[in-house]
């Protein structure tokens, strides 16, 4: 210990002073200077300005700034100054009101609901990235198979969705979902208004089934009964007989989710969509926290005791209910439409990354595995997956960020239709500025988006680091 402290002290003594180091690196600062100068004006100043804006009621009236930004800022702090300089048109200081209005759903915008939007955005991201990765890896493996003819031709053309500007693809897909003359309806023979239909497919299916059986339009929850009973039974069995407690707990959670979800849906007093909608976000928010804890528990970083396990269990149940309701009862046809469009758009990126990684795997590994008697399935999980993981994890993180902020697809394909059910955070932020002209509120909204993104980045970073430890 003492030796270490001594060496540390010596290192501190030997280290040149800050000024010395700055002077030695003067060339570096000189190189950075132009970019720094530019970014300070164009990037960082607006970000700081945004923080101020978010605390005021900046609106259209303040845009006619006669005396410049600083008079506005000064006037917002000191009403006396603002009264003396009406030309400055300083906005009023409202403190955290904008944030509270946004988070408390007190913005009187049509169909505005922050927590629904946030959960929709998260689910949209997860489902999309899931499909991107699955399809990308599968098609990369298909293209990487030995002896396939025209490989280079296919590889070149599969990039088209990625090479087309997302703006254009969004508009083309919007066009293809047209009710009367769009490609999808023409080819499938459907007469469905993909982008405007408010009922969800599951709702229509269940209502139709239940009407057909004779239970009436509202009798559909009872259709779930057999499946739920089977799930609960299986879960209970597994819970007592499972070899590992962890698997048992998860399966128990699954069964209880099904049961609780059924109870929620079956009883009319909680079934009305309005009451469900307000419950939903608490369920999902609570559940997401639990899920994160569960992920840490699964990766072995957190060893929960009985109480911790119970909490995780409950949150996973709540999350399950929330997601089930969200998917079944809130996501209309336009969600599936825009999902298809974004899957089409996103998989070539994953395919390209996976192809690069697959080409780096030596063929001998597979031969050795075959000699050892491994099946193709085993070879995939034991060789391919661990070896492409280092390339895929950063790509997945980039893909998640890109999908979370996928403005072009959402805005141009559905435009948030129907009733703003497919709105994500960035499109709402754009609407706040472009349509509502609520600059102050938009600034607060952007800051909230920033924090959401930061949390997602930190969590995905942690998870990816946790998964990286599972290396070859």
């Amino acid at each position, binding site marked *: 210990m003492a030796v270490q402290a001594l060496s540390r002290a010596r290192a501190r003594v030997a280290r040149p002073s800050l000024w010395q180091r*700055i002077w030695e690196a003067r060339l570096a600062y000189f190189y950075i200077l132009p970019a720094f100068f530019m970014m300070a004006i164009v990037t960082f100043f607006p970000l700081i300005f945004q923080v101020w804006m978010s605390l005021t009621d900046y609106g259209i009236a303040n845009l006619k700034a006669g005396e410049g930004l600083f008079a506005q800022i000064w006037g917002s702090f000191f009403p006396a100054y603002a009264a003396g300089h009406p030309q400055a048109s300083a906005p009023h200081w409202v403190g955290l009101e904008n944030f509270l209005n946004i988070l408390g759903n007190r913005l009187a915008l049509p169909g505005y609901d922050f927590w629904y939007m946030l959960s929709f955005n998260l689910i949209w991201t997860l489902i999309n990235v899931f499909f991107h990765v699955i399809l990308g890896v599968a098609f990369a493996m298909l293209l990487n198979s030995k002896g396939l003819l025209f490989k280079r031709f*296919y590889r070149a053309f599969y990039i088209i969705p990625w090479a087309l500007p*997302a703006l254009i693809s969004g508009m083309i897909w919007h*066009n293809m979902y047209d009710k009367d003359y769009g*490609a999808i309806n023409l080819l499938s023979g459907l007469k469905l208004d993909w982008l405007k239909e408010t009922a969800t497919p599951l709702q229509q299916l269940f209502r139709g089934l239940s009407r057909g059986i004779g239970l009436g339009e509202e009798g559909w929850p009872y259709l779930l009964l057999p499946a739920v009973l089977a799930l609960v039974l299986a879960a209970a069995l597994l819970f007592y007989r499972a070899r590992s407690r962890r698997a048992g707990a998860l399966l128990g959670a699954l069964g209880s989710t099904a049961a609780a979800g059924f109870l929620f849906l079956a009883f009319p007093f909680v079934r009305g969509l309005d009451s469900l909608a307000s419950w939903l976000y608490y369920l999902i928010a609570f559940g997401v926290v639990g899920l994160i804890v569960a992920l840490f528990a699964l990766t072995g970083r957190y060893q929960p005791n009985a109480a911790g396990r119970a909490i995780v269990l409950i949150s996973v149940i709540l999350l399950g209910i929330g997601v089930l309701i969200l998917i079944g009862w809130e996501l209309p046809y336009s969600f599936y439409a825009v999902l298809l469009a974004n899957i089409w758009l996103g998989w070539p990126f994953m395919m390209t990354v996976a192809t690069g990684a697959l080409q780096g795997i030596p063929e001998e590994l597979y031969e050795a595995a075959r000699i050892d008697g491994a099946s193709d399935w085993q070879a995939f999980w034991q060789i391919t997956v661990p070896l492409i993981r280092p390339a895929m994890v950063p790509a997945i993180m980039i893909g998640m960020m890109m999908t979370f902020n996928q403005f072009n697809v959402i805005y141009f394909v559905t435009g948030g239709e129907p009733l703003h059910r497919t709105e994500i955070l960035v499109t709402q932020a*754009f609407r706040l*500025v472009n349509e509502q002209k609520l600059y102050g509120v938009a600034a607060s909204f952007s800051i909230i988006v920033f924090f959401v993104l930061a949390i997602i980045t930190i969590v995905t970073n942690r998870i990816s680091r946790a998964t990286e430890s599972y290396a070859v």
Partner: protein
Amino acid sequence: MRRQPPSIGLVVLGTLVMALGALLWYLLRDWPYAPAFSIISLLGLSVALAGFWGNRRWRRVARQILAQLACILILISVLFPVLWIVGMSMDPRDILRPLDLSPITNIPTNLLHLLPKSFALPEETTVFHLQPTTSEDPSPKTLIMGAFHALPEGWTRADLRRPDVWLIGSDLIAWAPIVPLPEGTDTLIDPGQVTRLSDEVQIEALLPLEEAVRPDGWVVWEGRPYAVPRGWSLKQVGNPTLWLLDNRLLSWGILSPLPPPENPVAPLAEGEKPTCYLVIKEKGAERRYTCPPGYRTEVATEPAYWLAGGTLGLCNGGQSSAISKDNLGDWRHSPAIWLVGRSIVDWRASSLRSFASVIKQPTLNPVSFPQLLLNSTLLATGVAFFCILVGTTAAYAFSRFQFPGRQAGMLGFVLVLMMPSVATLAPLYAILNTVQVGPNAFRAILWFVGGFLIAIGGILFLLRVLEGMRKWRRRNLGLSLACLAFITLWGVVPFMVPAASSWVAQLPAGLFGVLQWVLVALTVALLIGPAGVRGLPGLLPGVATPPRGQPRVWQERLRAFRRHFQRPWFFLPLAFLSLGLVLGLNALRAWGIGGGEEFNLRTTLWGVGIAMVAGALPFSIWNMKGFIDTIPKELEEAALIDGASPTQTFFQIMLPLAMPGLAVTALFGFISGWTEFVLSWQFLADNMNQFTLAMALYGMQGERNTPWANFAAMSILVSIPVTLVFFLLQKYIVSGLTVGAVKG
């Protein structure tokens, strides 16, 4: 040969393919070429047979067939939207779209611009006027256009089924769900409010009505419908017609000619085959009508819209078969390639007319296609070039140097990278909007910045020269001092602008011109002039040095000076500096003259460019840093050991090696600039001449009356450049992925 056991996978997959072929044949059985799908079934059959009986070689062929089928399936699904849009762009039948009937008025909202101005609202429609509340007003609020407004007394927003029209300050703003008022409540517009007209405007366009008369009407302004307030009539005063409500110009009549409304449109008789007819949708059902008498459809090249019984229908000149929605079922009878395109009945009928018409007039706005192209190109190349210019050195510094503040800088980059460009929209809009100066002042700023950048380039060169002149160490001091003085000048000039600019502005224009051209001519002469001229300034230090010792020594020294100054590269930095000086002088003069028309930075491409650089610069630096990280450090170390200066190393070793990286970064910048929509749509909305291609394309989709073929042609034209460049540089982009480059 030993028989292999049957391969279950091949048999199952082969059977599936067989079934797929049969299914396709069945689904498309009306298509004359449908039996071609039997080929797929046959392939599936052969795969299954090979899986059952075949030897190893046959199975390999079977696997190849399966893989090829899968690849072709993927290829079709990848190309599907592309083929669709290509097919649509060449569709000879112009538009075939249902009318967007407004829920209240039953008026097709996508054709509002074609409506006669005196078009009557249905009896039951009511137009309500909402007033902004005062802050102490406790009545229920709703938010419209950024301000809170009270709902009229006795109104709620509960019922979604019965939308009505809200009017705020005589602007129709929303189809909003309001429950109707109880009888007898009057919230109509006070005519006194609407008469506040400014002096320059002719007010005879809009006249107050007599009591009892109520011909309400519609106008379209900037693509949005406006109701004429009750109590006002329209008086057509010829073309263009100006309407003024509440000091706002509502419409200048660019309406297409319509057949006179008194022309009756008669239903078709059974079995009658008109040359052209009209489809009218009424609550889902369709009725066809003959052309109004006296209307020449043969000469109409664009689809014509007619009014019949209070509803609009559409008709395409002469091509009666193209109008009927029933005929759309004919899509099956099309060549295979157009199956995925939009049902071109006969590919020989396909035309490139939509491309021509898009290039002739891209949108209803008066902005031309070359203008759009120029704007997009300027924005995209400008952003890409600027990011490279400013970002390269910073990326190099972050990649290669260790310095205090590096970690903090990287953290800042990550934070900024995380923000989507939408997230800084509000502050950038507000900030750029405050820069409203005269054009001369703006020019001054541009010249000043340009001069500053050029001067920095000159100083960089100067440093190189100084490093090359180790022998002339004593002279270095003087040159360094000159350099320092120049930088100081640039630093001080902004603060003395008012004084200096007025002084420079007072110079007669001729004298000023002569002054700057003399400066330029001197620079050119020193750069590329004959050796004698180039050597002239060498006399100065020679003369300035007092002669000591023997005259021969002095002459010797003079000759050495002249030799040195005759080197051609010696004056390059000086040329840069003096060019910067010329630009700076121009800037001062423009600033001093000032004036001109008011100019808003926000509504120009410059503003959008600045806003885009805010997002693109951190990304480019990050991206280029990734590239530079992959270049082995040993190359530079070797150069440093060989005696090159850090600047030399940067220019001669690093830049050539990093060229692919720079190219890809520039490409990303170009793509993001070319397809930029969020910022430009928000910033440039008021300035039509600065519209970009992407904006025009979105505008076409917004204007529901634009033919789809034109929209398709436009989207092809917009995407061709970026897609081509993407394909050409595909190799670099894919290799760039390994260092974290993503699509911009």
